[in-house]
């Protein structure tokens, strides 16, 4: 219980109880030059993306590389990719919380933030893709539930709400800690409002823990439904190689896969920049690496099943798309995907010696590149091969699309950076609680497992 009581400012008491986690306050209290330099560079990328979008808004979608019948391109790829990455936080952290994995304590926060932020980019890319963004309200006024896009709207907004609450609840005690430390000013006021009068009483702790537990369970089915519905956008049509029954689980597995990879990369950067080596340890990367390895195998299994059925069935319309991916225009994309999504991560992660911090980070970056390509090779080649013998072109994205892609990553990083400047990126109270209570709890739990 001691852990949940807020600090009484940087006085004597916090020197005793707070000094251990002092490093977690550092990013909030001090901002170095590196931060501003990176921030400025990223803003430049975002500005270029904003200009690109302005161009598109002014002249129409013609400034992209899309054509007839390749009506969807990078924006939809981004949409699926970002929604996939959003499965990082909430899902992983919820699974770890529910399964009482003690090693989760220092990593859940950094993961949950990814979820909430990246969801905006998933939604954002769909909006960027619209030819008539000015008519967005029609989706609400005239929305029709028979369209899978409406299912997306519903499940995405639900997921956004649920994962925001799930991020916010465990933040409350930490915000209270900050509120008590901060001298007067705007931030003190902000924390006072957001802390909702948290005082760490027995009753408050009880309700908070209950709330977190409820949200952890609620978020799981919502997260699964989100990416299933995203896959339905494709699989509900009757287009060759989109109309597939395994798309739901295939997309969900891919989402968790790219999500874990995103957490690992984010953790490695935070560890380096904010000197959090004590909180993100070798063991965290090792455990997440094992999870990633499981998903690598699962991804391979799904991909293999998906492609072997198309190949063996050899339905003429489908086989055209299949060979476009294997040996045609999109063969480079497909085979780079196989290398980056399976061969590289599998070789690194299956080996105990290479499954260290550096190894898991390399594997994760590779997985994220591969998963983006996977989404791309699902969206574009199908559209290139309509059933009727039309002449079709090749999709070559323009600077507008590439700038907006870069801008998404840059803006995401910027908002993540701002978050680390406002809130502790490692859950302070959960780490403390772990130190004080977890050992006894685990010993007690072990006693219930083992035969006497």
């Amino acid at each position, binding site marked *: 219980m001691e852990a949940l009581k807020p600090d009484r400012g940087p006085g004597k008491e916090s020197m005793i109880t707070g000094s251990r986690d002092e490093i977690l306050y550092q990013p909030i209290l001090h901002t170095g030059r590196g931060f501003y330099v990176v921030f400025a560079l990223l803003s430049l990328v975002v500005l270029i993306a904003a200009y690109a979008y302005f161009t598109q808004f002014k002249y129409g979608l013609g400034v992209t590389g899309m054509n007839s019948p390749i009506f969807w391109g990078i924006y939809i790829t981004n949409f699926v990719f970002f929604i996939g990455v959003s499965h990082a936080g909430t899902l992983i952290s919820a699974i770890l919380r529910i399964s009482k994995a003690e090693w989760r304590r220092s990593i859940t926060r950094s993961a949950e933030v990814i979820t909430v932020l990246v969801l905006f980019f998933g939604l954002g890319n769909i909006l960027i893709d619209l030819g*008539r963004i000015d008519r967005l309200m029609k*989706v609400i006024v005239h929305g029709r539930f028979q369209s899978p896009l409406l299912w997306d709207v519903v499940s995405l907004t639900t997921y956004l709400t649920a994962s925001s609450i799930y991020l916010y609840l465990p933040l409350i005690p930490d915000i209270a800690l900050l509120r008590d430390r901060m001298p007067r000013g705007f931030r003190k006021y902000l924390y006072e409002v957001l802390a909702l009068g948290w005082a760490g009483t027995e009753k408050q702790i009880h309700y908070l823990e209950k709330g977190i537990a409820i949200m952890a369970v609620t978020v799981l089915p919502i997260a699964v439904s989100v990416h299933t519905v995203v896959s339905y956008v494709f699989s509900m049509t009757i287009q060759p190689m989109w109309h597939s029954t395994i798309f739901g689980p295939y997309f969900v597995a891919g989402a968790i896969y790219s999500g874990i990879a995103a957490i690992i990369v984010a953790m490695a950067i935070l560890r380096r920049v904010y000197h959090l080596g004590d909180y993100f340890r070798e063991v965290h990367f090792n455990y997440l690496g094992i999870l990633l390895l499981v998903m690598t195998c699962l991804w391979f299994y799904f991909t293999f099943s998906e492609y072997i059925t198309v190949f063996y069935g050899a339905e003429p319309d489908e086989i055209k798309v299949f060979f476009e991916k294997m040996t045609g225009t999109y063969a480079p994309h497909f085979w780079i995907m196989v290398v980056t999504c399976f061969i590289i991560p599998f070789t690194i992660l299956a080996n105990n010696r290479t499954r260290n911090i550096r190894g898991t980070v390399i594997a994760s970056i590779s997985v994220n590149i591969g998963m983006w390509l996977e989404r791309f090779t699902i969206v574009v080649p199908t559209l290139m091969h309509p059933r009727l013998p039309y002449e079709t072109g090749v999709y070559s994205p323009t600077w507008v699309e590439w700038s907006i892609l870069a801008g998404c990553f840059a803006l995401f990083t910027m908002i993540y950076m701002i978050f680390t400047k406002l809130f502790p990126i490692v859950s302070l109270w959960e780490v403390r609680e772990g130190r004080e209570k977890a050992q006894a709890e685990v010993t007690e739990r072990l006693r219930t497992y083992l035969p006497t």
Partner: protein
Amino acid sequence: MIRWGMVIDLDKCTACQACVIACQIENNIPPPSPEEAAIFRSISWMRIVEHKEGEYPHIKANFMPVPCMQCVNPPCIKVCPVGATNKTKEGIVDQVYGRCIGCRYCANACPYTVKSMNWYKPEWPKEMMSALNPDVTVRPKGVVEKCLFCAHRIQKAKDRAKAENREMTPDDYIPACAETCPSKAIYFGDLNDKDSIVSKYVRSPRAFRLLEELGTEPNVYYLREGA
């Protein structure tokens, strides 16, 4: 209730593309610039699809005019999130340009790939501006469009019939492509009227529909070549 349908006799079709041009003029379809056409951005509601078999000199070439199939079970309507594509009582798959949000989902869901996107604001050479058809909406940029069986002509036909104090009959209305076809390869009429010329041809052993296996039930029929 009338169900509008079209029968295209491939034996009579010479692939002259007069229907394509008639459609462009009738429906205010902007001519694409050569650069845009080269990257497959041109809009056409009626297209001649070319299909070659064999190698020169032993070659067999097929040409087939393809308008919107006006399916009885249209896959495009199912996926539209805002109801910007609907079916009229008379079986025509309609487009509501003012409501379309430009997501292009319908264009991707159409197995016949007959929908087009307005990638830019449509533009005409100055000389053609005064020749635009006043009965047909000029589409704004960012919306999807397609063949509507010249549905604006139905309204005209109804008005004409009313002025002459009589009910409209299927003979009052014909789309521009069918009207123009020099070899009279395109028949148009009421499929629900079992005595109409289209119904007669639909019962012919030569009749077939495109991608029938998908269950979309097009209202556009073809008559097989070489009969």
